């Protein structure tokens, strides 16, 4: 039975092992940075930025999104529109644009 793999496949696997090491390093960085006092908002922003970067690595490489078919991208565009709408609503509700805020 023939293999269904090519050079691109092997490159992809190698890249993923590299991503795994990057993820471990950035996990340690996340913990290290949390001990530095950056102010209330500062620590939250940095932690979420690092987490988002790690999440993008997992999505792009492990989940193979950086070379996926356009139908998948079209589905995910809607997902992120709705996710950001949810976060925006949360923000609006907290700052008084909607309902009772602080």
């Amino acid at each position, binding site marked *: *039975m023939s*293999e*269904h*793999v090519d050079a691109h*496949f092997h490159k992809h*696997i190698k890249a*993923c*092992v590299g991503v*795994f090491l990057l*993820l*471990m390093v950035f*996990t340690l960085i*996340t*913990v290290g940075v*949390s001990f530095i006092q950056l102010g209330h908002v500062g*620590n*939250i922003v940095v*932690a*979420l930025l*690092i*987490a988002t970067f*790690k*999440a993008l690595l*997992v*999505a792009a490489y*492990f*989940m193979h999104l950086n070379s996926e*078919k356009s*139908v*998948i991208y079209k*589905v*995910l565009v*809607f*997902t992120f529109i*709705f*996710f950001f709408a*949810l*976060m925006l*609503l*949360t923000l609006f*509700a*907290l700052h008084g644009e909607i309902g009772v805020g*602080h």
Partner: protein
Amino acid sequence: MQIPYEVKPREDTGLWNAKLGIWLFLASEVMLFGGLFSAYVFLRTGAPEHVVGQPHSFLEWPHGWLNVWVGLGNTFVLIASSITILLSWAAIKTRDFKKFRWYMGITIAAGFLFLIVKCGYEYPQKFKHYGLTAQTEDGKVVHVTGHIVKKTDDFVQLEVDPPKGGHAEGKGEGHGEYGSGVVVGKGDHGHEVVQFPKDKILRLSNWGPWYHPYLAIYFLLTALHGIHVFAGTLVNLYFWLPGSKMYHTDPEHFANRVEVSGLFWHFVDLVWIFLFPVFYLL
């Protein structure tokens, strides 16, 4: 009769069926966890901020209630399992059954390890830990936390937690002022044991989700995540044992199935990448 496009992709989308199916499902899962993260934002921003000079409010957002190193260990376990499930899929594509068995086995073990640490250690630690609020003679309240040493119909003995870096929740917490509580000795961990009469106790509760809004959203989000880890591990176990028969009859179809399971597993890892800093570090 064979279902079309289980292996061969459709000409119009370039996808085989389950690939589109799993991504649609993961899109819905983003909204499920997203909604609960939004709830976390509301609870956290709604918590009172400490005003310097004023006593602390019980409802302030707490810090240091979770063991960072245990959480870090579990994070490494999940990230490692993410690469091993990918390598197990790659092994099917390169027709190395032994390698597939090896890497999928590690992935399954990692899933169970994560759950044993969470449900066998972290959660039970919370249920054994107590917070006690009691009246004092001068009409105020004292709040202490610790572990129950002895409980009778008349009193409760608590080995109190040492104060963390000077932060005291009202009177008490190892400062020697316990209102109606009396120090009766030292406990197994070297901390004071304080005895409170039952009739002065306003609240005695372990650190379950009912104890504080922080624990409520912590248990909800991590338990939902834990159920996903468990379900994913069961599916992986199926592919490791009875399901692996398909490797010998239709290996490309089997590779697709493992790829779909891998996508779910990566999503579970992705959620934890956010859960860990949010609850353990911030």
